[in-house]
């Protein structure tokens, strides 16, 4: 049996070639390199020595790595569920166009155009035990007993770092809002004529129709949570007592220690976990989405 090629196959290949080369150079090659080095003992100076899965085993035996892994799941949940839920709620409210909704839309989105580094530095000052605004505010409202070193307290450090990321919902809010506002008004008019309440309209019209966008937003947010680094590095450097340690930071420390094998093993682990989590979410929500579409 001879293979049939498209009559313009040469042109197709040539047009695809540049992007394939770039894809190969900046995605496939690094991916393969990560997994290759994760099986090696290498300090970046001498030759690599093959050691099999030892780096992975060492990592999973390390209690700090396991703690970091747990923290990454907390980040993924916080951003993927809590932040998206908040973003969706605000989007649904703004989609109703209350008074001043355009101003609110801008206000919610504004922090997303500011550098994450600047925001982390700002919250570092807010949380400061001696001169921070949070402790000052608590004192003013008579809750001085709650004053603490927010980033130096094992119980409060992780929630404090996560809080300053979760509340900035603007990015996903805008995406969900755009999807919500593209739903024809006639759907809501018809529902209103049938006596549906606002909550019933949102539940039976809006949410099913923006489910796909919400799932995509959750996927992105979970990915952001899994690769969390900047806020933790800038605000706590993984402390106190490794309470806020995340895998991205652990990887960074290993790279700085010329331990490329362990560092790439962390990277390899993150990729696998991310792939499983994200495909799991799409499978979980994607099936119902397909069913919903089939039933329409």
């Amino acid at each position, binding site marked *: 049996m001879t293979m049939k090629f498209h009559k*313009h196959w040469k042109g197709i290949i040539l047009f695809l*070639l540049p992007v394939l080369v*770039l894809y190969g150079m900046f995605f496939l090659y690094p991916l393969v390199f990560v997994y290759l080095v994760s099986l090696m003992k290498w300090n970046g100076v001498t030759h690599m020595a093959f050691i099999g899965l030892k780096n992975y085993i060492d990592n999973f035996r390390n209690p700090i790595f396991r703690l970091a892994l747990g923290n990454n799941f907390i980040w993924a949940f916080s951003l993927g569920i809590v932040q998206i839920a908040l973003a969706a709620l605000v989007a649904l409210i703004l989609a109703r166009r209350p008074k001043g909704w355009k101003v609110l839309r801008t206000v919610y989105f504004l922090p997303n155009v500011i550098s994450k580094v600047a925001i982390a530095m700002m919250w570092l000052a807010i949380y400061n035990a001696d001169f921070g605004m949070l402790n000052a505010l608590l004192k003013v409202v008579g809750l001085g007993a709650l004053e603490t070193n927010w980033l130096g307290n094992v119980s409060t450090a992780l929630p404090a770092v996560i809080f300053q990321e979760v509340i900035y919902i603007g990015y996903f809010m805008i995406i969900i809002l755009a999807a919500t506002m593209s739903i024809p008004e006639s759907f809501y008019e018809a529902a209103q004529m049938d006596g549906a309440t606002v909550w019933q309209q949102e539940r039976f019209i809006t949410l099913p129709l923006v489910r796909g966008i919400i799932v995509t937003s959750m996927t992105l947010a979970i990915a952001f949570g899994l690769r969390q680094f900047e806020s933790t590095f800038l605000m706590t450097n993984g402390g*106190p007592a490794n309470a806020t340690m995340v895998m991205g930071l652990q990887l960074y420390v290993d790279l700085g220690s*010329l331990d490329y094998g362990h560092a790439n093993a962390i990277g390899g682990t993150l990729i696998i976990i991310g792939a499983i989590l994200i495909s799991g979410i799409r499978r979980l929500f994607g099936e119902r989405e397909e069913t919903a579409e089939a039933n329409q």
Partner: protein
Amino acid sequence: MRKPISIAALFGAALLFLLPVAVFAGGSQEGGLVSINWPSIWVGKDSKAPAIADLVKQFNADHQGKIQVNIEPNPDYDAYRNKLNASIAAGQVPDLFIFNPDPTTFQYYQGDLLMNFTNDLKGSWGQEFIPGTIQQATRDGVVKSIPYEIGVTPIWYNKALFQKAGISEFPKTLDEFWQDCAKLKAAGVVPTAQMTGGTNAWTSMLWYTQILAALGGPNVFDKTPFSDPIYVQAAEILQRMYQNGNTTKDAVGANAGVSGGHFLAGQVAMFLNGPWYIGRVKKDAPEVFSNSGLAAFPAINGGHPGGQVAFALSNLAAGNTQDKAKRAAVIEFLKWMTKPDNVRTISESAGSLFAIKYKVDPAKTDPVQAQFINALNDAKFTVPNLTNVIPAKVTAQLGQGIGAMALGKMTPQKFVQFMSQQLSQAQ
């Protein structure tokens, strides 16, 4: 349809040829001019920056048309170290660079990536260095970096705050130290600056090293770190420095900016840092500067008083090259930078101390710098700081362990066990 295929072919070929090729450091040679690229952290606000820039300018002027040294500013220490590691791993070693010598960075010596100075230093050039410093830069009989800046970190205290608390002189014993801490607190002054943040919990690490030296003497690091009971004893003392208001409320999680900031703001009586900090104190806290005093750690019963923490802070290294002209140019520049007169110029302007022998002019010597020099000269013995003897991966956990101990999550024994485990895993 031949036209689209030919256009596509041209487009694809052009993109392939125009794909960016990574070009890392590495100077070039054009028409006899040897260009040396030097990514440097001694730029911007670093106290040595102006003097270094002037010396480079003068060198370039003296060697116009033959050698050109180009400083590439890299003001952030951590970013610089990471960039260096990435470049070295990619086989792209800069023509010239600076590194903090520790067990991790001495791995750069392995392989053939660095220029070997062993034979160059055997002559008169090697005689210009303080005895022992070249040995500290030697591994397996080979010298692949030039010892340059050295650090000494006595206890830096604010005499005015001590006087405010009714203390006329620095405590000589540990018991007196705790009594003076109580007096300082009664006067509304925080006794010590501490920090568990940053990559190495710098201030607290130095306190811990000072205590270890006072307990273990000059040979404290001869044994494997964290294997001796004095590490637990030292940790108990450090833990007490974090308790009962002996340090600031934000010490756990604080970075160098915070711990130094408290000292500069006149809130904290005792701090630890090296002579490179003189310029900063002079500029940002003149009152603290004029009341600065330096001291060794108080004597501990059964211990070794009078020691100081002194260590190689920064070494200069160069990428290996087969180009004889480039090699000769790099050596020429390094000899210029290690010339005693030039080193004295940097020392006088920045307050830093160096591994090269030079005579200080008392008329030009900063009074606080003179105290640092005296602290070094008067020391009964010196020990390097803890991060000089443990790998970077273990250093990264030092702040975590100290933080856990400060918060009561680990006892001093558990802290030492934890650090010992980190050391075993890193080896």
